[in-house]
């Protein structure tokens, strides 16, 4: 069950190329944070003390911190974000010691059905890596070896993958401009990888993807072509994050020819089977 609480900013560290790692903790005497699953998210206020009229809404951020072991309550969590708009620009200016409202954990999180011996192939576009990171760390903890494919614009954006590499996650990179790793998009990297894997790919791998909409659509198409299961963590502007505004929907079809239905990304998602999403 999500908890709405005020958390204290312990650190708001710039990691380069507009990427920030935010550490939030429950102040002494306040209740501990309920445990969460990889891929769940938090609605966070933007670093001004107290409720603000402008910007009015909190922002959704995936929880970067891996889930606490044995589902224990936690006293702190981290958010990894990139300054992309007005909200994140405000958050980047927030100083340690400030308290911010935080409603978490929200959404369904990743729970890919696992065939024995299969490995997770994590396809990240830019800051989408932040929601895949805790899943990868969890895999490592359980003795498996996930592989992350990371697509970004240019070499400077490798800041977005630094914490994951530090955590021991194997990452392969593609950049739009070819300044680091392979040249091209994350979906291209995925396509080449699955081609090299050959017909075994569909038994060996399960794809989890997060990034810009076009990138996830591309990844879903590539995955379908290779017959590999694919789960995507979708993004949307959100007003509430807990289901009541019905503003963050995505169109889904439960099968070919089935009617289009709108599902709330914040409650029925953010993780969906890529095969049901009406891209």
């Amino acid at each position: 069950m999500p908890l709405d609480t005020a958390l204290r900013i312990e650190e708001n560290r710039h990691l380069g190329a507009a990427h920030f790692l935010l550490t939030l903790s429950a102040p002494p005497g306040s209740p501990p944070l309920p445990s969460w699953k990889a891929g769940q998210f938090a609605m966070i206020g933007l670093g001004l003390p107290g409720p603000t009229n402008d910007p009015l809404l909190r922002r959704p951020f995936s929880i970067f911190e891996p889930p606490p072991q044995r589902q224990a309550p936690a006293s702190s969590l981290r958010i990894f974000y990139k300054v992309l708009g007005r909200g994140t620009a405000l958050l980047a200016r927030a100083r340690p010691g400030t308290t911010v409202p935080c409603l978490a954990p929200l959404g369904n999180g990743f729970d890919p059905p696992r065939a024995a011996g299969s490995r997770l192939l994590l396809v990240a576009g830019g800051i989408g890596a932040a929601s895949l990171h805790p899943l990868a760390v969890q895999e490592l903890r359980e003795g498996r070896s996930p592989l992350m494919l990371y697509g970004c614009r240019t070499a400077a954006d490798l800041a977005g993958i630094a914490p994951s590499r530090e955590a021991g996650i194997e990452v392969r990179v593609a950049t739009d401009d070819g300044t680091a790793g392979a040249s091209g998009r994350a979906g291209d990297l995925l396509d080449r990888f699955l081609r090299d894997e050959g017909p075994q790919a569909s038994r060996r791998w399960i794809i989890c993807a997060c990034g810009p909409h076009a990138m996830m659509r591309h990844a879903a198409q590539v995955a379908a072509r290779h017959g590999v299961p694919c789960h995507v963590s979708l993004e949307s502007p959100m007003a509430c994050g807990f289901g009541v505004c019905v503003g963050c929907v995505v169109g889904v079809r439960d099968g070919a020819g089935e009617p289009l239905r709108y599902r709330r990304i914040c409650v029925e998602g953010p993780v969906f089977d890529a095969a049901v999403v009406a891209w």
Partner: protein
Amino acid sequence: MSAAAAGPVLAVSAGPLALKNPVMTASGTCGYGVDLLPHLELSALGGIVCKSLSLKPREGSAPCRIAETPAGMLNAIGLQNIGVEAFLRDKLPELRRHDVAVVANIFGETVQEFAQLARALDGADGIAAVELNISCPNTAKGGIEFGVDPEATARVTEAVKAATRRPVIVKLSPNVTDITLIARAAAAAGADILSLVNTFVGMAVDVQRGRPILASGAGGLSGPAIRPLAVLLTYRVARAVSIPLIGLGGIRSGADALEFIMAGASAVQVGTATFTEPGAAARIVREMEEHCRRHGVASIASLIGAAHQHGAFPPEAGPAGTAAAAG
């Protein structure tokens, strides 16, 4: 025990609708009420107004459905809802377990549909009142079509009154030249209560892409940005009709709620604030109680319309400063 020790009386009556305190959640901002359960005790509230119900489930509008604006937000949800049958079957039994007035908001595309919805709810236990959404700006048919026309407002109000024994609340749109004409028409047609206001129609443009942010183009503006507009309309309607009012529009605090009470509303609805803080409505009840305590107010009902005692503002003036026709 002294009155002070017992605490201020928060109970109010909006005509036939008795509420243990004046705070309700607004339609479209609390799901079907049960969606708030992880975040607050429903029994802490005077009432909840469920999301607009239609006869059949509706899928709503294509995304993008929301856009943040200065001190507010636009929405174009398009009344996505599970339909009245599923509400009665799946949601109402749980709601009945909580000590809170449940108001069913209904939406029809025709007068007949409104009446059918009211009849469907009339037989159900645990519905305190019916609220008519004749002011939704986000549907092609029904909704605001009724809310901008005094005659259509009267027709739908009469039809619903004839179809239900429950108190009928008519929710007014601010997107009219003179809201008092619509208010008078609804009152004359038998409305028990008026709630005001629904959202203001607005648009935000994505300047990178050169097109409206919302897929529907226009949407309804809510949040603190509209509060002064809504307070004035409440004040005006309070002078135009004698039936009780429920005020809403950008309420975020106990003080905000008291603005509407003092402008003439018997109760209030909290909407967008719930999005930014799931427990907002319960906090607002506490803040109103605290205000009464601090100011020695024995009963919050004594504050209803307080702002009208201080001078004559020209309530009959329309938005353009023109004299409106007397109803």
